[in-house]
C-alpha cells in the first residue's frame, strides 16, 4: 500500500465510524453542534497521530504481554496534554466537550489503530495512517453534526441558516440523545446500502 492509500483509506474505504463502527461514544455524544464535532475531531486526531507515532517507534521494545497497558499510558499522556492545553486556550470548547476529552483515552479508534496498525508498521506509514483515520473520524462527526445542528437548531457552525422562526421551534429531538441514535441508524444504513450496491455491481 502506498502512503497515499494509507492516508485516503481512513476517509471512506475504512472510515472508522461509517465502516468500522468505532468511536461511537463521541460520535453520538458531542455531535450536537459542528463546532463541538470539529473540536473533538481535532483533539482525537492529535492524540491518534502522536500515539501512532510513539507506539510505532517503540513497537520492538514493548513486550507483547503488556502492550495494551503501554498503549493506554502513551494515549493517556497525549490526552492529558490536549485536556490541559484546551482548558488553557479554548476554555469554552473545553467546557462544552466536558468529560469526553478525558474519555479519548478509551476511544476504540485510537487503541484500535495502535494495536492494529502502528504495532506492525514503520513510523512514517503509522503517522500517515493516524492523520487519515483522524480526518476520517472528524469528517464523520462533521457530517453527523451538520444534520443535527441544522435540524435541531437551524444553524450550521453557529450561522443562522433557517431563520429565527425556525429557531424558535426547531426539531429539538435532533440535538437530544434519541435524535443522535436515530440519525446514526439512518447514516449507517445509508452506507450499508452503498456497500451492497457496490458489491452487487462488482459481481
Amino acid at each position: 500500500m502506498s502512503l497515499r492509500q494509507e492516508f485516503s483509506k481512513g476517509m471512506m474505504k475504512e472510515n472508522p465510524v461509517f465502516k468500522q463502527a468505532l468511536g461511537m461514544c463521541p460520535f453520538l455524544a458531542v455531535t450536537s453542534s459542528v463546532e463541538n464535532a470539529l473540536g473533538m475531531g481535532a483533539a482525537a486526531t492529535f492524540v491518534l497521530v502522536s500515539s501512532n507515532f510513539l507506539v510505532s517507534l517503540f513497537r520492538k521494545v514493548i513486550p507483547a504481554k503488556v502492550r495494551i497497558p503501554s498503549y493506554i499510558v502513551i494515549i493517556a499522556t497525549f490526552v492529558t496534554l490536549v485536556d490541559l492545553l484546551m482548558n488553557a486556550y479554548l476554555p469554552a470548547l473545553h467546557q462544552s466537550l466536558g468529560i469526553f476529552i478525558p474519555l479519548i483515552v478509551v476511544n476504540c479508534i485510537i487503541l484500535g489503530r495502535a494495536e492494529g496498525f502502528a504495532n506492525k508498521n514503520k513510523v512514517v506509514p503509522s503517522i500517515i495512517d493516524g492523520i487519515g483515520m483522524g480526518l476520517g473520524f472528524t469528517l464523520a462527526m462533521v457530517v453527523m453534526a451538520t444534520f443535527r445542528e441544522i435540524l435541531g437548531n437551524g444553524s450550521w457552525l453557529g450561522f443562522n441558516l433557517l431563520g429565527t422562526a425556525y429557531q424558535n421551534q426547531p426539531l429539538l429531538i435532533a440535538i437530544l440523545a434519541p435524535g443522535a441514535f436515530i440519525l446514526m441508524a439512518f447514516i449507517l444504513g445509508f452506507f450499508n446500502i452503498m456497500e451492497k450496491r457496490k458489491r452487487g455491481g462488482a459481481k
Partner: protein
Amino acid sequence: MAENRIFDLAVSPHVGSPQKTKRVMWDVVIALIPALIAAFWFFGPKALMLVGASVGAAVLTEWLCLKFMKRPVNFAFDGSAVVTGLLLAYNVPSGVPWWLPVLGSAFAIAVAKQAFGGLGHNIVNPALLGRAFLVASFPVLMTAGWVAPMEWRDGQHIEVQACGVPTGNLSEIGELDALSGATPLNVLKQTFGWEGEPERAEEVRESLFSKESMKNLFMGRIGGCIGETSVIMLLLGALYLVLRGVLELRLPLSYLGSVALFGWLFGGPGWLDGNPLFHLFAGGVILGGFFMITDMVTTPVTKKGRIIFGIGAGLLTMVIRRWGGYPEGCSYSILLMNLCTPLIDRYTKPVSFGEVKKNG
C-alpha cells in the same frame, strides 16, 4: 390477495380464521369514530382538520416507504396506517398547528414502523413513538397546547369549563376562538407541589373529584388531547370491538385494574387515599387501555404475559403520574412495556402438550 403474501405457507393442517389484518384494522377505525365525534363536539372543526391531516400523512408516508422499498404498495391501504394516523392525532392537543400531527405521523410510519420492516415487525407502537418524538421535539406545543372545550349554542351562549371545573358564563366577552386551559391531571400534579398550603390543595382536589367534575371527565368536557377525553365515546368504540371479537380483554382489564389499584394506593397526596375513578377517567388511560395497549404486534402473545404486561404498564403509568416529570404517563408506560414484550413472552411460554416440566 395473492400479492399480499409475504411469507410461505406451512404444510397442513392449518387453523382457519376469519380475522384478517384488513378486517381488524377497519374495525378499529370504526371503533375510533365515536371519539372523533366527541372531539368535533368539544374542540370544534379544527380537531377534525388535525385528524384528517394526520391520517393523510400516515397513509402517504406508508405508500412512499413501500414504493421506496419496492414492496407491494397496496399494503398502504390495509388500514393499519389509518389506525396509526388516527391514534397519533388523538394523542396531540387540539391547539397545535397542522404540521405537527403530520410530522408525527410521518415519523411514526417511516421510523417506528417501516424502518423496522413494516406491519408485524415494529417493536413499539408506532403512534406512541410518534407522540414521544413530538413531545421530545416540541415540548412547549405538546404540553401547553391544551384548549379548553367549548360548547356553543346559537353562537352567543358560550359556556367554558376548563379542567372540569365550571368557570362561569363568558358570553360577555363575545366570540372566542379558543381558550387555553390545564388538564385535570395537570391540576392534580400541581396540587402535590403546594406543600405550604395544604388547605388550598385539598380544596382544588375536592373540586377535581366532585360529582360535577367526574361527569365532565366521563363525557369528555375537559382539556386534553384530541381523542382521549371522552370516556363514554371511547367505551362505546371498545364495546363494538368486543362484540366483533377483535378485542381480547386480558390486556385492557389488567391495565385498567392496575391503574385503579395503584391509583388508590399512591395516586393521592398520601398513601391509600387516591381516587381510582379519577385516575381511570382522566388523561389517556381509557384510550391507551383499549386502543393502544392492545396492539397485537407489540404485546405478548401468551395469556399470562398479557396480564403481566397490563399490570406493569398500569404501575408505570401511576408512578409517572405521581412522581414523574410529566402529568400523564400512559404513553410512556406502554412504550416501556412494549420493549419488555420479548422478555415477557420468553418467560411465560406455556408448556407444550405432552412436554414434561423440568424439575417438576
